[in-house]
């Protein structure tokens, strides 16, 4: 396990503040970071080092909590504690705020683009999840306001191929939503975590969902379609989700983020104990009851809580992380030799 995760570079991305979240653009050439200093920074490589290419500073009145790139890579959405979501249009190195989405009653905690590029989801401390539709003229319209959670909603993420939305909440549950007729409805509730669920990540195929929690575990859930061979019960034509694996005993504090590499299938976690961990599924493990092994454990990856981990979508093994210490770190992960 030694040297499976190696530090490549460290940048003071949001000095004297927290860095909350990172997002790689679809081509993997740019990294967007956002923080408590109300700014968004865009990072790119120049030779061997990472440099700040743009600063988006006039968009928000309060902390920017999450950023997300559109599937085409031309737009960046930012979710802020000022209750507003900004949509920025990229014009080479410049970004212009083209729309602001209002409606949430308080802090927006997350924003995510659907793989089709036509839908956007936001969630907030006001316990609701909003689904927005965008047309060819860059006009955004609210398609649904979902009040299924009973507490602060921390994260939203779209399925990689289906129009299925997942949300994680302070109410300890994960909820899934899909379109039914003219409206969106909650089609499943995943219970099992014993505390706040902070983040979610789908595996490359979209058949499994990883969730991480304040209860210091990562849970892996699998989708079972009606009529499945394993005999998992489904109600009507809705798929069922079952927890098929729980990773416990590895983290000593709250797990704030989980990221599933779309290239290698490796699972990275960001923890409140300042460490980054990587897990890989054991080869030959039963798909219905998979086992994962810890393949990297970087203690003191940062000097404070690690808030986010993000795998580069094009370069296998390139992982970015950010922390309450305001820094962004770049790592190289290799499957450990001899395992």
């Amino acid at each position, binding site marked *: 396990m030694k040297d499976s995760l190696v530090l490549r570079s460290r940048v003071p991305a949001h000095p004297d503040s927290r860095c909350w979240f990172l997002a790689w653009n679809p081509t993997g050439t740019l990294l967007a970071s956002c923080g408590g200093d109300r700014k968004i920074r865009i990072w790119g490589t120049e030779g061997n080092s990472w440099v700040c290419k743009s600063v988006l500073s006039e968009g928000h009145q309060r902390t920017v909590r999450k950023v997300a790139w559109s599937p085409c890579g031309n737009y960046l959405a930012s979710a802020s504690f000022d209750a507003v979501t900004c949509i920025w249009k990229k014009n080479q190195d410049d970004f212009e705020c083209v729309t602001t989405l209002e409606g949430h009653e308080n802090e927006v905690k997350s924003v995510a683009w659907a793989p089709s590029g036509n839908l956007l989801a936001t969630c907030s401390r006001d316990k609701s999840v*909003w689904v927005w539709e965008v047309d060819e003229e860059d006009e955004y319209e609210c398609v*649904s306001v979902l009040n299924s959670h009973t507490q602060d909603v921390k994260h939203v993420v779209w399925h990689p191929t289906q129009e299925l939305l997942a949300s994680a909440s302070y109410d300890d549950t994960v909820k899934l939503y899909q379109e039914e007729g003219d*409206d969106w409805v909650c089609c499943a509730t995943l219970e099992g975590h014993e505390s706040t669920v902070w983040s979610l990540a789908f595996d490359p195929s979209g058949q499994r969902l990883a969730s991480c929690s304040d209860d210091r575990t990562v849970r892996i859930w699998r989708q079972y379609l009606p009529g499945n061979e394993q005999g998992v019960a489904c109600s009507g034509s809705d798929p069922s989700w079952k927890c098929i694996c729980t990773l416990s005993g590895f983290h000593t504090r709250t797990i704030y983020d989980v990221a599933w590499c779309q290239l290698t299938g490796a699972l990275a976690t960001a923890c409140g104990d300042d460490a980054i961990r990587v897990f890989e599924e054991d080869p030959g493990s039963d798909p219905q009851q998979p086992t994962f092994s810890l393949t990297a454990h970087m203690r003191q990856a940062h000097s404070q809580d690690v808030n986010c981990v993000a795998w580069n979508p094009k370069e296998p093994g390139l992982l970015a992380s950010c922390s309450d210490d305001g820094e962004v770190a770049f790592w190289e992960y290799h499957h450990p030799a001899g395992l």
Partner: protein
Amino acid sequence: MRGVRGPGEKRAAATVVEQDMFDAVVMADERFHGEGYQEGYEEGSSLGIVEGRQYGTLHGAKIGSEIGCYRGFALAWKCLLHSGTGEKDSRKMKVVEALITLLQHFPYDDPTYERLHEDLDRIRGKFRQLCSLLNVQPDFRVTAGGSRLAF
């Protein structure tokens, strides 16, 4: 003569009488406590029912006024949008109609309806979506009591 023990009467009978007398004195505290508790419990129960009824009336009225406001809002906008043409207006109209339908199906007279809160949340969600489409800011300050229609 009363109160005078006859020559044949046993001493034990006298003792029993004396014991009852002491019993009454010694157990008085506990007895009064018990009686007091019983009276209090009954009074509390009936006061509780009164208070509960008042609370229910207030709470029910709050929900009623909230729903009533949504209904008025939806019906007003239905008229306003009637003359509108174009795709945007038809989407707004669809949402107005959906909200009206939800409100019509809501059981106003059944507080034990099992999906009361679920349906209320759906109605509130639909209302917020409508406000977003119409670009209207809903005022969500909740005032305790009072005749003003502000929630």
